[in-house]
């Protein structure tokens, strides 16, 4: 990871990562747009919580945006993802609209789950997003099931399962990787290793040094990349999604990253030092991506500023939409328990 980190910090055209050959300026502008949108969405969500507008809890992925966007760059609406309790980034990267996400946050009828799910269950089946999940590891076997559907229905779809380092010690993770490998299913397992399962470090919780080394136990490729480096994530996930589409079976990708915010609202940061947090803040994936886009001639500083300004406006409008949206009616409580 340190080598990759050093590379991303000394950007020169001569060390341009090869994955950029597969992406044009428009695609990269959209990737930056999504990374910024995730960041601003979560900052605004945090703000709405502080102002007492939203309810419950939330898990912010600030600092992890390059993973969600780097992976989803290769997915279309007919591909699926399953996500985690820290899932805002995955939703936005997969195509969810921030106005309906804010509406869900504020518990409104116009939200993605009509206010029934909140931050932890945002889903958008129309764009292939099978949902964030409140259970650690809960989405992993569901992703394998979606991949089984894709294989049976011959849709050509690939499924990405996002999960955290905490999930790599759940039985669901191990059972799912095994089943996906035995049945050779088109699924990519993406572990966002942000160093902590709530408060317990991977060092204290996980017997192996890298989650990626779990992969050979399930006869699939495993790769560990710098999760704060868009190009590194994009490169690994391009190969994995292509392999899955070719019928080559599953891959495990570990993206080493960091959440600069706490686990949730209750976190008092007793398990990590301010120095550690500052070190990672200096490795913020968004400015690093912008430096590369500029250095490799994809976007000028002026264009980058335009993207930033556009995101700020988008967030403003989305919040206004959410705030103006109706709340659910208590009379509808039982409406969606059953289909019939």
């Amino acid at each position, binding site marked *: 990871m340190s080598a990759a980190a050093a590379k991303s910090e000394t950007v020169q055209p001569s060390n341009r990562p090869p994955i950029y050959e597969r992406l044009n300026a428009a695609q990269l502008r959209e990737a930056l747009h999504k990374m910024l949108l995730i960041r601003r969405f979560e900052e605004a969500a945090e703000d709405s919580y502080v102002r007492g507008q939203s309810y419950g809890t939330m898990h912010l992925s600030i600092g992890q945006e390059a993973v969600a966007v780097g992976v989803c760059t290769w997915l279309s609406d007919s591909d699926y993802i399953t996500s985690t309790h820290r899932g805002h980034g995955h939703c936005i990267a997969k195509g969810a609209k921030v106005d309906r996400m804010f509406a869900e946050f504020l518990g409104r009828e116009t939200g993605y789950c009509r206010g029934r799910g909140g931050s932890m269950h945002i889903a958008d089946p129309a764009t292939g997003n099978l949902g964030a999940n409140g259970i650690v590891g809960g989405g992993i*076997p569901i992703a394998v099931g979606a991949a089984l559907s894709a294989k049976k*229905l011959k849709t050509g779809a690939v499924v990405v399962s996002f999960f955290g380092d905490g999930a790599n010690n759940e039985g669901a993770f191990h059972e799912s990787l095994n*089943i996906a490998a035995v049945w050779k299913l088109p699924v990519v397992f993406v572990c966002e290793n942000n160093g902590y399962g709530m408060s317990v470090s991977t060092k204290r919780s996980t017997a192996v040094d890298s989650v990626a080394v779990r992969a050979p136990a399930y006869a699939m490729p495993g790769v560990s990349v710098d999760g704060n480096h868009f190009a590194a994530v994009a490169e690994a996930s391009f190969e994995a999604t292509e392999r899955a589409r070719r019928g080559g079976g599953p891959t495990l990708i570990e993206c080493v990253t960091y959440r600069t915010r706490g686990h949730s609202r209750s976190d008092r940061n007793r398990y990590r030092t301010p120095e550690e947090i500052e070190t990672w803040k200096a490795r913020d994936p968004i400015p690093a991506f912008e430096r590369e886009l500029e250095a490799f001639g994809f976007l000028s500083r002026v264009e980058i500023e335009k993207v930033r300004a556009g995101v700020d406006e988008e967030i403003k409008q989305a919040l206004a939409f959410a705030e103006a949206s109706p709340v659910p009616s208590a009379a509808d409580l039982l409406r969606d328990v059953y289909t019939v």
Partner: protein
Amino acid sequence: MSAIVRELSYAQAIQEALAIAMEDDERVFLMGEDIGVYGGAFQVTGDLVHRFGEDRVMDTPISELGGAGVAVGAALTGMRPVFELQFSDFSTLAMEQIVNQAAKLRFMLGGSVSVPLVIRMPTGSGTGAAAQHSQSLEAWFAHIPGLKVIEPTTPYDAKGMLLAAIADPDPVIMFEHKLLYKSKGPVPAGRYAVSLDKAQVRREGRDVTIVASGIMCSRALDAAATLAEEGVEAEVIDPRSLRPLDMATIVQSVKKTSRLLCVYEGVKTLGIGAEISAAIAESEAFAYLDAPILRLGGAESPIPYSPILEKAAVPQTPDIVAAARRLARGQV
């Protein structure tokens, strides 16, 4: 034209429903442990793998949680999986996916998805398989909004309810009592559905209402025959569905007989009969009661191995006769 009616066993009736569902709908497939060439631990899937192939009758690794989750994911994305848990006891390994995911996804996602999944579970005691292969956990699942829970008693209902369950857009848990697998009954050939929310009066009577599902319904009918010889006419109601519970049929019967006995194999405390008793106490039938409500449930113990102990742990026909007799004679 009425369909040809044959005598089939409960297991054959289920197998026939699975075959029809797979013939009719390409999306239907079976998953489970040893359901392929082995034919299932209770020979329910039998030779289906030879007829439909390994892609539609899929042996899974011994991974109940993973298997359940794969079934949920497949159901969410256009397939209609029927997942067999080899013993209902093994549902304990899969509870996360059944309770947190299958049951809640539709609601949690604001109605934007459905989970058309059937989970079949051989259940109950009486086979000498002891504490970890003999439980009756129906009440656990009936406690979860978002699930539908059925427990057919007859081969006719087993086929018709399973066909209805596979066609249903929501997750259905089907309990199949192991002692019923070999029991025979008339089953029409071809397609028919039995609704997933209606109880059935199996025997009419004026003196006492006995509510019992699965193998307990068979025992209640045997008990009713004995009671009739003594002049006690028991009405036997088979709930068939435990969630939703068709209380209207039970209320109507209790208003007629004024006496209620609930019989169930699950542990008595907080079991299905506890719910039925409470619902009757809250209903218009309460004012009609001439005696306290009685429950005969499983003992407050794990299911033991030794036959004499195993029999003592769950209601048997003589227990039902004795309890109904006491109720009918005002001895409670």
